């Protein structure tokens, strides 16, 4: 199965990357964008999807500073290259 893991900075932790994007947008002519946060996207083919939460806890995210979300979005191969 192809899975996506979305990792984002935990609420309340300063996210300077998100702020930088938020500050840069108006100068490029994009108004009305707020609450920007930048995180990580991990996409993988996994045989046993039940392993995903443990993988996230152990490696893909650091639970002290990051939240994660698992999206299982397709059968293996659909997005693989």
């Amino acid at each position, binding site marked *: 199965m192809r899975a996506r893991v979305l990792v984002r*900075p935990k609420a309340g*932790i*300063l996210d*300077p*990357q998100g702020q*930088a994007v938020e500050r840069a947008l108006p100068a490029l002519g994009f108004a009305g964008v707020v609450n920007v946060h930048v995180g*990580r996207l991990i996409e993988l083919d996994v045989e046993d999807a039940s392993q995903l939460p443990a993988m996230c806890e152990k*490696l*893909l995210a*650091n639970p*002290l*500073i990051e939240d994660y979300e698992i999206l299982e979005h397709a059968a293996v191969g659909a997005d693989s290259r």
Partner: protein
Amino acid sequence: MKFGVVRFPGSCDEVDAQLAASRAGGTVLLWHGDRDLQGVDAVIVPGGFSYGDYLRAGAIARFSPVMGSVRRFAHDGGLVLGICNGFQVLCEAGLLPGALLPNVGLRFLCRQVDCTVVNAGTPFTCACGEGDRLSIPVKHTTGRFYAPDEVLEGMEAHGQIVLRYAPGCNPNGSVRDIAGVANPEGNVFGLMPHPEHAVDLLTGSRDGLVVFQSMRDHTGGAVAA
């Protein structure tokens, strides 16, 4: 006194750490794939970019075989010093509280900074005086120390905040100007500044040497006792 310096794929400052430690004792490199710590008295987890800093700084290195041994060594009271990337590895491994986040400036920053010794009672600072100011370089992109408030309160109470950036010198936005922290037992210490790059006036400063000397003095004391 024998220091062991870990070498991960992507470590950069392991030879520097070895050179610095050799001013205070003997040294040996510990290969990431080996579990044998070769009877060292202290372990240094050095700076650099272990595993390219890919995913998150320190996230992959903490799983290497040598780190299993370092964990046991630390649990048995052995001295473990993590510098920069080594600090990140120790946090990721749960041997130290907190985490390191991207600098508020988002850029890599290499700069000589002043730090203040907050707790001179640890095995890593016992050769300093409380309040001593040390000029030591930092060089990192991910050095903003973070821990939740309640954790920080506990750390303050237990003397775990060992080193702070001097007022006006905080290079990365670390909470409470924290530059270096210890575990509650005091035998594991991590810091973002690079004491191994401050051991000789020729290359800028020798203020970092006290860290290695403290470790030696502490170990010497333990042996004598």
